[in-house]
């Protein structure tokens, strides 16, 4: 049994690690669900998923499918009522259902009213937003092939490899059959992003670029800010405090990284086999240089310790500073769209596996340090009957990477 105070820390650390893992698992589950759904058959929203049969149902049942299509389009149009307007897409919207083989709707600028629809559609008088286009995609299965052609016309993306013969032949050939299922594998390359979305995204990147450029070139504002800070400092009536805890934490982080890098280099140098004597001289110089740098870092740490002790700085609330890592936007909003290219699934998988492995090992190292700090003093205590079990437990946790559980045998002295 462990004493209460050390066990509290152990349990808190382990529980925290487990909670962090659980959180990651949750997020991963969510994105896995999304991905799996995307790679399966896309069902029209609001209708229970049809059986994923590979062959079309017998074409000798037009009326149920007719009704099903009508229902789908009903739902689509109902959704359209809730969506904001966009005049640019009215013509397309009118054009698209026009080519639907079963509807004989007139090509009016207003959204078409197919014959025999329920009266709920008469309320659809507003033109729909272009982001409604993807809804048309999922409900009218034949229609998605028409969208690329129209998008090409409006966007002028003639360079892309969409087939120009997308228009009528496929529609007419598909017309007699029932609605086909849509899978990403077969028809993924025909998708197009809605125009409103593209516009918003490009506006977003433009605004970010503007913001970062203004940040780089504002000397007047920087002067005004500096003046204000000085006035604040003067008005507070205290001498300049020196370091804040946030700065201390940042420096400690830097020095921890320095320690890691220095150790890496030291291992490189000492592991290398002795080469010719000039190389060897350089190696000696390198090691001595590393030693000097380590000494400088140590001196800096001592200064920080004195500062912390002398000023009675308060530690960070909640135990960790939220902006220690620059990747959370620490230094400034230096946002640039950064891409990572990969060429095969295996590459991507091994990258992710490496990253996770590294994180896992770092966490295990930290936990082992905590365990060592808490458990080793207990093991070194006075011998007692229960100490055997404790030793065995400590061995299983700390030795051999926690992989083995040793067996303890009492060796009876032979009589």
């Amino acid at each position, binding site marked *: 049994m462990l004493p209460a105070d050390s066990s*509290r820390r152990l349990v808190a650390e382990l529980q925290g*690690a487990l909670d962090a893992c659980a959180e990651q698992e949750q997020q991963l589950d969510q994105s896995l669900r999304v*991905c799996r759904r995307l790679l399966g058959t896309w069902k029209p929203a609001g209708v229970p998923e049809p059986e994923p049969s590979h062959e079309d149902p017998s074409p000798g049942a037009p009326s149920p499918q007719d009704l099903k299509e009508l229902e789908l389009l009903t739902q689509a149009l109902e959704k359209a009522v809730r969506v904001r307007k966009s005049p640019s897409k009215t013509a397309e919207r009118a054009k698209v259902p026009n080519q639907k083989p079963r509807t004989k709707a007139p090509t009016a600028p207003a959204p078409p009213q197919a014959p025999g629809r329920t009266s709920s559609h008469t309320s659809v008088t507003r033109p729909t937003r272009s*982001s409604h286009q993807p809804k048309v995609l999922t409900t009218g299965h034949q229609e998605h092939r028409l969208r690329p052609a129209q998008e090409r016309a409006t966007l002028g993306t003639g360079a892309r490899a969409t087939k120009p013969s997308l228009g009528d032949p496929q529609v007419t050939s598909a017309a007699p059959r029932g609605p086909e299922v849509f899978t990403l594998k077969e028809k993924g390359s025909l998708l197009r992003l809605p125009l409103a979305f593209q516009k918003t995204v490009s506006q977003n990147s433009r605004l970010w670029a503007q913001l970062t450029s203004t940040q780089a070139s504002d000397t007047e504002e920087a002067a005004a800010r500096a003046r204000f800070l000085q006035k604040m400092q003067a008005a507070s009536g*205290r001498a300049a405090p020196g370091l804040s805890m946030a700065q201390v934490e940042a420096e400690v982080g830097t020095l*921890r990284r320095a320690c890691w890098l220095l150790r890496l280099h030291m291992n490189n140098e000492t592991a290398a086999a002795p080469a010719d004597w000039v190389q060897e001289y350089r190696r000696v110089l390198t090691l001595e240089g590393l030693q000097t740098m*380590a000494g400088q870092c140590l001196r800096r740490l001592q200064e920080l310790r004195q500062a912390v002790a002398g000023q009675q700085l308060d530690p960070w609330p909640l135990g960790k500073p939220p902006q220690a890592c620059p990747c959370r936007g620490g230094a400034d909003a230096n946002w640039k769209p*950064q891409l990572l290219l990969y060429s095969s699934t295996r590459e991507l998988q091994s990258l992710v596996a490496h990253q996770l492995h590294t994180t896992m090992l770092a966490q295990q190292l930290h936990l082992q340090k905590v365990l060592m700090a808490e458990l080793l003093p207990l093991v070194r205590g006075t011998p007692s009957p229960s100490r055997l079990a404790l030793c065995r437990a400590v061995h299983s946790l700390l030795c051999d990477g926690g992989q083995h559980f040793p067996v303890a045998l009492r060796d009876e002295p032979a009589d």
Partner: protein
Amino acid sequence: MGRRRRRLERQAGAGAEALPEAIAALSRTLPTRPNPETFRRAKFDLPEAAPALWRLLFHVLLREDDGTAVPYPEAQVRLVKSALRAHGYPRPALTQLPEDGSQGSRELLLALSWLLAGGSLLGRLLTRTHVLTGDQMPMCECEDLAHATACLDLPAPCKDTSNGLDMRYVQWLMGKLRFRWLNLICGHQEQCALLSKIHQYTQGCHSNQSLGHLSAAETELLRDPEAGQQLLWRLERENGRLEAALEWRRLEPIFWQWMDTVLGACPQCPSDTGPQPTFQAAISDRGHEELELVTRELQALWQELQLAAEARRTAWEAQVQIQGLELSTPQVLVSEAMVERQLATLRQAWEQWGALPHGPHRLVRPPARETRAWSMAGPKLLLEHSMEALPGP
């Protein structure tokens, strides 16, 4: 005050007419979107403005994303106070504000301006809530991320440890953690495979040529228009905030002039009245632990380096003596210069950590033939290069 805007475009230094615009732009950029009136009321230290400002400071300083729980107002006040002190806020009047959050709006306004004057606050806030439309791969090698452990001053953990703990429970927790990690790695591998398929199947769809294919989020928006609507709405909201931030930048000098008047309206602080009230030990001393830990590691490293360097040098000098070699002066100088350069690069590496490719990268799979051409242009990171940079498992 509700003054109407007379002109839209006005040079900085125009005075009072542009001030409402500046404050409105600022409040549109900030996370909780406080009412611009709050700022005016705070100048006159009216108590109605205080709760909104406490909430705002809490969101700005301590709340990293929208998912974390928000504690009740008294706790918010305490946390904001200690966070400001940890940042080095100079004015002592803040610590003397009552904990029920009902007073001190002028002081809070000064605190907010002090944070803004640091220069990068708005940028950081906007980056924090940036909407990502691609499949992101975090490329961060910071060890801080691995130390995602519990903070020790939360209310008691679920296991009652007042009577001591059985070791087997600790062993069980460690095993559970290991199992969870393996599960996580498997799950991630599956996700990589799925994402890779999605990227392959949607090649040629994206309007942005440099990207080429859709991401999972974009494909999802095509499949489910409701989700797409959500995404669009979030993007538009971010665009609104970005525009407000740009306008704020334009009108910033006016704000600082006004803040000077606010500062002037404050009663003069008495000179340092002795040591500040220290906070109770309910806050963990994790920062001190870190300091101690790093000191110990560096000391151990320094000793190892000392031994290694001495050993190598004596060996080398012995070798030189035996073989009767002599280093000529140019050789010495060249070697020293080389080593200096290497060490300077090393120092730069840890001091300029932020310059490394940090932050989430968007995954892009170029079509097979074009990989070479793609690698030439633009700020892209090829997977092979990044793999070299990673420390191996």
